[in-house]
């Protein structure tokens, strides 16, 4: 019985103070702006709520709720969902998978293959693996890189602004 608290301690992920999680604040704004600069070709995705799913990234989820959940993308109200830790993901316009959930990604790429979901991640080599957008740090700044091939595969049309502002575009 004495072992349990120790195990609980060891299993607890480090929880950064949300008020100091600058990366979450920046990522939330990027996701909102990216959503405004992408078109979903699938007609079904242009109706109902605009769903942003978050796997991991508790502070990013909080930031999206706090700053952007009352906004719209076009006429679609934004709905932010904190997803359970699983590779089976419901319909989302944007799915953000955080660094701590990378082990789920191979299955997620497979499950969402050719689905109208933009997968956004934050690890080196993500575009090559199948992500449409990947957050990277360049010169101590948070930027994003973009895979045109992966966006097209998911039925997304990316405007020139998003391309031009990207740190790297993989055609």
């Amino acid at each position, binding site marked *: 019985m004495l072992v349990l608290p120790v195990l609980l*301690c060891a299993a607890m992920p480090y929880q950064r103070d949300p008020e100091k999680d600058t*990366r979450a604040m920046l990522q939330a*704004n*990027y996701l909102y702006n990216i959503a405004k600069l992408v078109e979903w070709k699938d007609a079904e995705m242009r109706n109902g709520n605009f769903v942003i799913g978050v796997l991991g990234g508790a502070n990013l989820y909080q930031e999206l709720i706090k700053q952007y959940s009352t906004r719209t993308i076009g006429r679609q109200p934004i709905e932010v969902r904190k997803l359970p830790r699983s590779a089976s993901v419901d319909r989302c316009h944007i799915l953000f998978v955080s660094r701590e959930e990378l082990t789920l990604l191979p299955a997620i790429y497979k499950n969402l293959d050719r689905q109208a979901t933009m997968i956004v991640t934050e690890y080196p080599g993500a575009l090559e693996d199948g992500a449409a957008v990947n957050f990277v740090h360049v010169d101590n700044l948070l930027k994003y890189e973009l895979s045109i091939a992966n966006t097209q595969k998911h039925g997304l049309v990316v405007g020139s602004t998003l391309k031009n502002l990207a740190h790297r575009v993989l055609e």
Partner: protein
Amino acid sequence: MSTALRIALLLCGLAPTAWATAQSDPLMDALRWFQTGELDSARRAIDHALDDPRTAGNPETWLLRGFVYKDLYKESPRPEEHTGMRDSAMVSLLRCLALDHEGVYRENAAQAYDFLARTIFNDAARALGVEQPEQARAHYRGYRAAMLRLDPNARLDERDVEFNNALGSLYNTMYIRDRTRTDLFDLAIGAFGASLELDPDNYGANYNMATLYYNRAVHAIRAVNAGDDIPTLQRIQEVSREFFQRALPFMLRAHELRPERPETLLGLENIYYSLGDEQRTDEYRRRYEAIVPLVPDR
């Protein structure tokens, strides 16, 4: 009358026996009034003694005047409104020291002077407590000048650092309350910078400097909202990066000075995280967690 003065006067032959032959001596009158606690009468008598050529040039006259005015200042209901008394006391004590070529009264006069100078420092501290930084600075300048009048070679670095750190903290508090007042941020930086010029190894000044820059950077990012487009976001990041980078050397120095303190480990973890340095973020997080183990929520 204070023990110090009584002893000083006795030791120096200024006891009533010495003055018994001169009952009309204004210095003697002043001492008697002082002994009985009649401070206003003592003041009139001692001021009169200054007009009397027999006593005007005596160091003991100035010593007694210093003590009379010191007690008048101390016993006034609101001493802060009677700083003129304090000034008169200090001038008198300095005059005593200047005239006391034998050094007979030096210790007593210097002690009393030091006490009064410390009350000026306390006034500065009190002004900081009620968030009147300009008044605090004026009092502190007064304290400094007073100490240097007593000893032009006095080393006041430690006091300067103590005051500047407290002043910087106050400016920071005021800045946090109104982030549009970047002049307060600059003043806080200036105050901690002044401390570091005197004592580059001062832990508090290094840590506070780092925290100031770090918080400024975080606040700029926290202010990002839905109205900001991607180019704006990138400009905000560039400004914040500058502040994060400025924070870093101060936090590193604070950590070097006190490697056992968890707040500098967490501070470094936060700075490196915001600069996107994953390796160092992980390193400092591990070191922080080694000192402050995580406790699960209950």
